[in-house]
């Protein structure tokens, strides 16, 4: 599986994603600079976390208009899988690849903690290594992770099974206790309609080695390898 990780001025998790992907594929992903309008053909594009363009104006707003994102939009339309993590999630929503947006956390604080996620479906190239309803533990680190979409969009997301992960309590209960940022319906990650684009606020790439507190995020990368190799 060949993958590319986008790098914007202010990205800072590209190395973490590269390591996670290398761990499961044995192959180093290529890094693609934001000004590059074209890059080699790949099986997966990752938009990593960080603070692209200093998060000026709105998180992800500037990066969404960069030359590399124009190319990513083209490829996503052709069905090339795109994974947006944290700031990458903000970028792909700003680019219109996913519905909704990420607002300031309801408590206004930066949150850096391990959270529990309920996997909503195993029927996607990203989540096939998990069971629907399974609870996984991965870290979050963000100040703008409060998912919001208008009521019509929320209904569509629910009806079409486009919600990938929800924040939950360790026992899997989805309620306010497990919600670290005020997200609507505890949404931590969503798919596009074809489930070829996934955006999520938590960092599965930081939960792939026992040494760093857990390996629950590894399934996401292994699942993609299985689906895309």
């Amino acid at each position: 599986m060949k993958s590319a990780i986008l790098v914007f001025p202010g990205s800072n998790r590209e190395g973490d994603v590269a390591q996670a992907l290398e761990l499961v594929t044995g192959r180093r992903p290529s890094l693609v600079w934001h000004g590059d309008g074209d890059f080699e053909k790949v099986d997966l594009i990752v938009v990593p976390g960080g603070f692209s363009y200093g998060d000026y104006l709105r998180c992800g707003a500037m990066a969404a208009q960069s030359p590399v994102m124009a190319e990513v939009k083209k490829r996503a339309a052709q069905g090339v899988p795109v994974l947006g993590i944290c700031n990458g999630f903000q970028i792909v929503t700003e680019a219109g690849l996913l519905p909704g947006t990420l607002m300031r956390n309801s408590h206004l604080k930066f949150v850096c903690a391990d959270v529990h996620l309920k996997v909503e479906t195993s029927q996607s190239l990203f989540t096939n290594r998990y069971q629907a309803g399974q609870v996984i533990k991965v870290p979050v680190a963000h100040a703008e992770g409060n998912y919001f979409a208008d009521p019509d969009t929320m209904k569509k997301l629910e009806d079409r099974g486009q919600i990938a992960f929800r924040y939950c309590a360790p026992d899997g209960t989805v309620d306010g206790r497990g919600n670290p940022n005020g997200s609507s319906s505890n949404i931590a990650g969503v798919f596009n309609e074809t489930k070829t684009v996934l955006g999520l606020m938590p960092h599965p790439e930081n939960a792939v080695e026992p040494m760093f507190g857990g390996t629950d995020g590894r399934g996401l990368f292994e699942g993609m390898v299985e689906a895309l190799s």
Partner: protein
Amino acid sequence: MKARVHVTLKNGVLDPQGKAIGHSLNRLGFPEVGDVRQGKFIELELAETDQAKAKARVEDMCKKLLANTVIENYSIELVG
């Protein structure tokens, strides 16, 4: 001419920052302050001299970059 763009959150979109500002003002001895909504003010220097054309261009800028129309409204004022 100059364009002044106000970007505000749509009605019904929770504004935790506005809420925090409101609470602070209440605490500082301004109990008359009720709901507070926070937004952005952006001033653009334009080479265009035709008002209608300028307005249309700035509308386009708002839709493409300056506002996120999922959660935000914008208003444009042309000056000079």
